[in-house]
Structure formats: C-alpha cells, structure tokens
C-alpha cells in the first residue's frame, strides 16, 4: 500500500472514530436526560392531581388553575388514585393497572418510584391526606423520547455520513499536500542521469525536512558530479600518459623495421624501446598504487609504526635514488617519550607517502637543502618537510591533489603527477592531515600530521 493511501486511511479512521465517539456520547446523554426529565414531569402531575383530588377545598382552586394553565395534557396520560393496598390486593391492583407488583411495593416502601414499559412511562407516589394513605400513579407516553431522540439520532447519523465524505476529502488533500514535494523530488531525480548531472533539485527557502532532503540530494549530486569529472579527467590523463611511451615504442619499432639495418642500430632501437617500456612499467605501477590507496575495497593491515624510524628509512631510500641529496634531519623537537612517536598505520604505505614528498622536495630543488623535522603535540605527530625549490604557483596549488596534474613550472623535471595524490590518500587512510604551502621560487613546505597511536610503552 502506498503511504499516501495509508495516510488517507489513517486520517479517516482517526477522524471518524472521534466523530462517532462524540455522537454516541451526545445521543446517550440526551436520551438519559429526556428519561429523567419525563419522570420528573410525571411526578409533578401525580402530586398536583393528588392534591386536587384529596386535599380539603381551601387552596385547591389555585392548584387546579395552575394545573390547567401550565401542565398541558400529555399524550396517553392516565392518572389513577387508589388507597394503598396491602397483602394480596397489591397483586390484584397491579394486574388491574397492568404494572408489576414490584413497582407498587417500591412505592409503598420508598414513597416514590418509576417504571417504564416500552414507550409508556409510569411514575407513582405515596400520598397521605386526611389520615388516609393513597398511591397516585401517573402514566403517559414519552413524546420527547419517541420524537426528539429519534430526530437526534437521525441527525447524528446523517452528520456522520456527511463528515465521512468531508474527512475523506480533507485527508486526501492533506496527504496530497504533504506528499507533493516528495513526488516532485522523485520526478526530478528520475530526470537526472549521468548526462545531465549538472541538474539540481529546486530547494524551497523554508527550512523544513523536505527541503533538507532536497539539499542533501543536491550535495550528493555535487559530489557525484565532482567524482565523475575527476574520473573523466583521470581516464583522459592516464590514457595520454600511457600513450606517450607506447607511441614512441611503436614509432621506434616501425622505423627500425622499415628496411634492413645494422646490428648496432637494432641494439640502439631496442634500448630505446626498453627505456620506454620501463617508463610505461613505472607509470602503470604508480597507477596501481594509486588505485590501491584510493579505494577502500582492500583491507590494509595497520600496525605499530615508529615515525622517527620511518623518517630514517625514508632518508635511506631517497639516498639511493638521489645520491646527491642534501637532506637534513632535524630531530631537535623530538618528544622525550617514545610513546608519542608511534602511530597506528601501515609501514609500507606511510613509507611510500613520505618518500614521495621527500623525493619531490629533492627533485624540484635540484638537490638543494631539504629539511625534515619531527615533533609531537599531545594528539598528533607532525612531520615537516621543507625544500628551497621552485615552489608551486599560487593559483595551481588547489589542483595538486588531482592525479596527473603537474604544475606549469615543472616541465624541466620528469614526473607523472601521481606522487602527491598517493600521499594524500595514504595520509587520509591514517586519519591524518596533509598541508602544503608554497611560495613560488622559494620552496614548498609540506606538513604531514598523523594521529598518535595510543600505544603504551
């Protein structure tokens, strides 16, 4: 069942049950009241009649006048006055009057009683006058009950019927009204596909739940669009990167095969091809690493890593690749407690991330001084790598994490633009921060912050 119908049904049931409850209460209360009221009227009649019939002449006239003037004749009104019967005659009297014996007995005992047979109402009192004891019985049909209550009942039933229609209309309207924005969102989202990711949902300026939902959708679309864009760029960049060595391999092979050559020519050509193939290999390997670090599909094993040891290892690695480097390790701010030097992480990945940064620093500063400093605050280990190289142009610094992006001043240097994205991914995996700041032609400062693993000594 659709939630729309559910809401209609629910609303209808709630409204109707309330209306029925009210109507029932009103009906019951008025019926009750009309009974009580009618008995009272019968009793008044009984008393006045008894007074007129049994009292001495003195003030009877006044009462008679009152009775004639104000007490109208009730339908089917019957008044009987009888001396209080005793013993067996009670039953006989009762039979004669067509009332139960119990009724007469109650009157005798309590002085007054009421009794009802279908629509005929009886009221009786015990009356003592001039030393004698009488029972006065008045019976009449309850006109109010037969007519008014029936009228009320019909009124209530027709009101309920009308309100059913009304409630249905109202709840239909309410559910429509509340689901309209949802419907709009659904149609709108259905329209959005990979071709028109730029489309957005319209957000009302009210801060209700649905506009929050729409906003959330829009945010998600923003992210999706960005991801799509990156993916597109990545694919085109990657294919371009891979294409270059491939083209030169093919070209070289084509040229060398065009006519018979000397053996040394073949060798030269094959050396060139090998170089290009190695480049290709490096690039694909870097690509693989990037993929491994950026998708969380694979679970990476995290272990205890000592950062000072890591920095020393990285220096050793970089020494092999750039033997002329001038790396200066600055451990002057090293914390005294080794507890503060341990992070929870994957050593290979951290090594890769750090060596990327350090090698970049060496490469882009032409082996000028590179300083690596290490310190720890209460929650983070901070590694600062500073070089005096060419720097990054200010307006390009926001693109440095895009795969294959290379700053405009890096043409003289070899590279693929994969290092920093890998580093960022690794640092992110370790819940750390990577901050890069730079002044063009003065150098780059990279700050890597990693949360301290809570290892005890």
């Amino acid at each position, binding site marked *: 069942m659709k939630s729309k119908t559910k809401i209609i049904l629910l609303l209808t049931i709630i409204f109707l049950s309330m209306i029925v409850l009210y109507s029932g209460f009103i009906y019951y209360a008025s019926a009750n009241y009309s009974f009580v009221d009618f008995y009272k009227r019968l009793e008044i009649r009984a008393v006045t009649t008894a007074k007129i019939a049994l009292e001495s002449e003195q003030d009877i006239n006044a009462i008679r006048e009152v009775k004639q003037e104000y007490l109208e004749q009730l339908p089917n009104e019957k008044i009987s006055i009888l001396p209080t019967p005793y013993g067996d005659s009670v039953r006989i009297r009762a039979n004669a009057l067509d009332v139960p014996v119990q009724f007469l007995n109650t009157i005798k005992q309590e002085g007054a009683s009421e009794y009802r047979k279908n629509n005929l109402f009886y009221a009786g009192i015990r009356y003592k006058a001039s030393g004698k004891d009488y029972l006065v019985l008045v019976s009449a049909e309850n006109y109010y009950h037969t007519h008014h209550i029936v009228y009320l009942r019909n009124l209530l039933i027709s009101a309920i019927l009308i309100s059913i229609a009304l409630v249905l209309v109202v709840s239909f309207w309410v559910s429509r009204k509340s689901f309209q924005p949802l419907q709009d969102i659904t149609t709108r989202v259905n329209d959005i596909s990979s071709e028109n990711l730029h489309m957005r949902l319209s957000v009302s300026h009210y801060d209700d739940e649905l506009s929050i939902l729409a906003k959330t959708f829009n945010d998600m679309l923003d992210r999706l669009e960005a991801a799509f864009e990156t993916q597109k760029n990545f694919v085109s960049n990657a294919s371009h990167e891979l294409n270059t060595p491939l083209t030169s391999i093919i070209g070289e092979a084509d040229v060398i095969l065009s006519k018979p050559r000397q053996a040394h020519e073949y060798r030269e050509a094959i050396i060139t091809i090998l170089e290009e193939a190695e480049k290709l290999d490096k690039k694909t390997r870097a690509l693989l690493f990037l993929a491994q670090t950026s998708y969380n599909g694979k679970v990476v094993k995290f272990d205890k890593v000592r950062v000072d040891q890591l920095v020393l290892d990285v220096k050793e690695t970089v020494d092999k690749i750039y033997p002329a480097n001038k790396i200066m390790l*600055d451990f*002057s*701010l*090293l*914390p*005294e*407690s080794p507890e*503060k030097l341990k992070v929870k992480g994957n050593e290979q990945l951290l090594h890769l991330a750090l060596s990327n940064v350090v090698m970049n620093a060496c490469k882009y500063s032409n082996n000028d001084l590179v*300083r690596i*400093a290490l*310190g*720890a*605050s*209460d*929650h*983070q280990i*901070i590694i*600062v790598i*500073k070089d005096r190289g060419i720097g990054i142009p200010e307006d390009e610094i926001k693109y440095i994490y895009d795969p294959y992006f290379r700053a405009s001043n890096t043409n003289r240097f070899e590279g693929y633009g994969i290092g920093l994205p890998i580093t960022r991914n690794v640092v992110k995996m370790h819940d750390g921060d990577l901050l890069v*700041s730079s*002044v063009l032609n*003065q*150098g780059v*400062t990279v*700050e890597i912050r990693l949360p301290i693993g809570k290892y005890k000594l």
Partner: protein
Amino acid sequence: MKTVLIPTDFSIESLNTVKGALKQCEGENTNLILVYGVYLSDSITDLLFFSKPKYLSTLQSEKFTQACEILKNKYDSQIHSLTIDLFTGYNQQAFENFLAGHSVDELFVPRSYRFKTGKRGFNLIPYFRKSSLPMTEIEWRESNLALGKDRLAELFLVSENL
C-alpha cells in the same frame, strides 16, 4: 626548581624564546610562565563578566596550543609546568609585584623579535629590561621562508639557528 618568565604574543615564532630558554636551563627542572601584557577594559560590565581562562583561550590559536604541546613533549623531563598568564599592570612597580607574586627567578626575552601585540596589548620588553632580575636575551634568525602565515612549521624551521 626554577621559575622562568618569558614574554609572548601568541605567535609560534615567539616560542623560539622558550626553546632558547630551555636550552640555557638544561638539566634544571623549570616552571615556565608565558606572559602577555594587556590593558584590560575598565568598563563595569566587562569586568563583571571577565574570566581569565576564557580570555586566554580566545588569545591562543589552536596552532599555538599545539606548538606548546610539542615543546612540552620535547622537554618533558625539564618542564615542570607551563602556564600562560596576563600582566595587566601599568607601571614597573606592578611588574615587580607580578614577578614577586610568581616567585620568578630569571627572565628571558627575544633580542630582535618584534612582538605583534593585538588589541589592547602592549609590549612588555621595557618592563623586562628595567627589572632587577637576571635577564637573558635569546637570538634567532627570522624565518627566511616568507610564508606570511602563522604556521606550525615555523617552530621547526628556525630551530637550528638558536
């Protein structure tokens, strides 16, 4: 135990004085007090709602706190305590009282660093110089990397020049 007073302007570069001071007092257990000079507002409502811890925390950037933590970790066994305080007096006598009140033993000031005092803040160096307590000047080369920003890296990068 020794108590050392050092002026600060809540910049990371100024913490180099602390580093220098700690190097000079090597091997001694030290209570460090960083002091910032400020003329407090004398409006009655400001005084009513004034809270020193709150005021101090508005002055300190997150990086400054982190830098202090780094220093504390570095000189863990040497630093007995590191507190930051305000000096709100108007004359030398008040400053002497402040020194006595904190039972300060020695003063350290930067030699050439120019304090960047904020709103209502004032330079404490003249008071330090006029004081009778032994005072040491700390010198470091200004960071040549013109980052222009108050970066945590400053703490690391100027270190070897002390």
